[in-house]
């Protein structure tokens, strides 16, 4: 029975990769453990090892092929007595013994119902309105959020010798999610500092260095691990300016991926936007697009205050247009109208925007024009922009992956009750992550997260359609 070798997933969020090199040729005998090929994603390069013994009968995906989807058969291994002619067409069915598959992915789960587009798996194709901060006619370049974040750090490090980055695997490994790729080579080990796995300690050290006047960028491999360090983020970073009567400022950025990735379970899938949003003395930024990621990270690094910069692992690989400007810095605390509409206001940020924008597109087909606000900054919150929109639409739905109780959506609801009650024609609804720890099973995880369908349903409810 010929055995298919499938394109393996290298990380929980990997959807496709490049087949950079075949180490074995057709006709080669392979033993279990032999290296067959090398594949890469934007995060890493890895070797594909053989699990089964036999002869490499046929290579189905040629060396150098880009964007090979996970689980695509890439070669066939023949058992004793079989020959390549037995392989007439690549088998589409999943093989019992896939090549290594270091970690299973969501793709292994049953396909999502066709009626509900999966916002997360594919970046929305909807267009986003140009940012008014960008002068008309500015040349745009396409880049991933990952590249935008790295460029922001590199530009600020070139500009100011007091800026340095520290964290786990930021230097020699080039970043656990490759956000700091190339920084060690350009700036050296003094300014790109690999720390031990010691969040409490290095977060405190970063704050101490900031009190002494340096401008640290502290990377948490994910914000889940920052719970070890949260005392220093709040008690040391956020409160010191106040406690010192304005004497000691703490210019520091804490950044890293926040929220759910994919299939990584409850301890690695938590959205901290609401947690940090609660704290006076902090600024909390959560960008969606690459342009915002760049412009706001540069602003965060220059900001004299501690800034919690919440990224999203799934968005890292999404591409957007970024203005080609020498020094693209955006104001912290300003929301952006991502799509204009008159019937309902959708407020979201970060990965929540993927649901909001897809929903807006679907709703438009049904004759409901949604205005989509990308909050971009959670604290200070741009409440006036939300209110201006609600004055026009009279209805509002918030969209976030975080939990419902005391969430960011709850705050938006409260602000609207206090400041825009008379403009509302319907109760404000929240679409949130479900009030449960994140489950591992693919189907349950999908249920635990918000969905485009839920956003549409909420909009239909507030528009009474």
């Amino acid at each position, binding site marked *: 029975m010929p055995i298919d070798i499938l394109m393996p997933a290298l990380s929980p969020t990997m959807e496709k990769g490049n087949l950079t090199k075949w180490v074995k040729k057709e006709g080669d005998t392979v033993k279990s453990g032999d290296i067959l090929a090398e594949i890469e994603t934007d995060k890493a390069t890895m070797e594909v090892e053989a699990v089964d013994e036999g002869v490499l009968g046929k290579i189905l995906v040629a060396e150098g092929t880009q964007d090979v989807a996970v689980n695509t058969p890439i070669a066939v291994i023949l058992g004793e007595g079989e020959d390549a002619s037995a392989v007439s067409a690549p088998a589409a069915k999943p093989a019992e013994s896939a090549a290594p598959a270091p970690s299973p992915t969501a793709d292994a789960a049953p396909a999502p119902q066709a009626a509900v587009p999966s916002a997360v798996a594919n970046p929305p194709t909807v267009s986003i309105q140009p940012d008014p901060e960008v002068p008309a006619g500015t040349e745009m370049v396409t880049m991933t959020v990952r590249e935008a974040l790295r460029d922001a750090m590199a530009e600020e490090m070139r500009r100011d010798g007091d800026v340095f980055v520290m964290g786990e695997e930021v230097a020699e490994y080039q970043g656990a999610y490759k956000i700091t790729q190339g920084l060690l080579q350009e700036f050296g080990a003094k300014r790109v500092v690999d720390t031990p796995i010691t969040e*409490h300690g290095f977060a405190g050290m970063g704050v101490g*260095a900031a009190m*002494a006047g340096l401008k640290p960028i502290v990377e948490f491999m994910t914000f889940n691990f920052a719970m070890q360090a949260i005392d220093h983020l709040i008690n*040391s970073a956020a409160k010191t300016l*106040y406690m010192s009567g304005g004497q000691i400022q703490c210019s520091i950025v804490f950044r890293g991926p926040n929220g759910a990735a994919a299939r990584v379970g409850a301890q690695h899938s938590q959205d901290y936007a609401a947690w940090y949003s609660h704290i006076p003395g902090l600024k909390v930024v959560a960008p969606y697009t690459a342009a915002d990621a760049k412009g706001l990270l540069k602003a965060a690094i220059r900001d004299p205050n501690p800034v919690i910069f919440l990224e999203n692992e799934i968005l890292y690989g999404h591409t957007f247009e970024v203005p080609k400007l020498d020094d693209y810095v955006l104001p912290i605390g300003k929301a952006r109208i991502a799509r204009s509409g008159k019937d309902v206001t959708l407020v979201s940020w970060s990965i929540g925007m993927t649901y909001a924008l897809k929903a807006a597109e679907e709703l438009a087909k049904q004759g409901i024009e949604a205005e989509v606000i990308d909050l971009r900054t959670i604290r200070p919150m741009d409440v006036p922009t939300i209110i201006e929109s609600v004055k026009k639409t009279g209805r509002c739905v918030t969209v976030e992956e975080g939990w419902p109780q005391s969430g960011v959506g709850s705050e938006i609801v409260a602000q609207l009750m206090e400041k825009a009650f008379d403009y509302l024609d319907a109760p404000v609804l929240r679409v949130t992550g479900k009030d449960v720890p994140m489950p591992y099973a693919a189907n349950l995880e999908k249920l635990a997260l918000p969905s485009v369908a839920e956003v549409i349903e909420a909009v239909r409810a507030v528009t009474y359609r």
Partner: protein
Amino acid sequence: MAARKSTARTEAAPAGVPTFTKEQELLAYREMLLIRRFEEKAGQMYGMGLIGGFCHLYIGQEAVVIGMQMAMKQGDQVITGYRDHGHMLATGMESRGVMAELTGRRGGYSKGKGGSMHMFSIEKQFFGGHGIVGGQVSLGTGLGFANHYRDNGAVSVTYFGDGAANQGQVYESFNMAELWKLPVVYVIENNKYAMGTSVNRASAQTDFSKRGSSFNIPGEQVDGMDVRAVKAAGERALAFAREGKGPYILEMLTYRYRGHSMSDPAKYRSKEEVQKMRTEHDPIEQVRARLLEGGVTEDDLKKIDAEIREIVNDAADFATHDPEPDPSELYTDIVR
């Protein structure tokens, strides 16, 4: 307050501890006495309701900060926990500003918004004043990181107590400080009680000078009641750190006479234990005895006592009459 009857010894300094010149003895006496009298006054004012919240007095431990201060150079930073009044006065911060912060007045170092545990002075390179036990150890290591980054020759003097020494982040900090050879002197003030829990009841290894040994950080135990021994050890540690050899641990064997805070009746130790420390090891009485033996007269010392009393009374007076912060200060200094 008349000189307390003391049996403090006046023999020559123990081996390895250099004797002080008369000027050094007078300086140490004066500075330690300022802390003692300041803290006594703070205790009184707390009793009068002028100082609120927590108030952790430093009485008994004065030789630690003064000996270290005498060993430090301009530019070296100081950071400590919540028993911090002595450290501030030692760096040269004004008594008025410290006392007014204790009373929550606008002339306080933090405009009355910090309180006893949260004062800072960029001018004196004093970085607080931290209320979370052990928090200052990571922060102080960060000050050392900044010195290393800037290659400015300064050393971070990071104080903490025997209680904080059991916090996990202390060892995270030790690890990084030694790994990167950061200029930090960790001064562990072992006053034998973490609030009400004696060292023996809380610590598996009660020799805190060895707490860095698994990171290869050198450490030594120091008689923290002898200002000369503190200064000499401080000079060794600071020189080591300044030469780029990495952090150094000094365990100061000391004692606090008062409770953990004003509201602590200190029933976890006997009155005799406290009395024995006061009469046999008091850091100020030791210097006083040596000064008298060295030819300084009672009148000379009385003059110093009167000057100190004047400074403290002035600070108390200022802190009592200085207005509270303007209500508008509620919303300032949150973000910049």
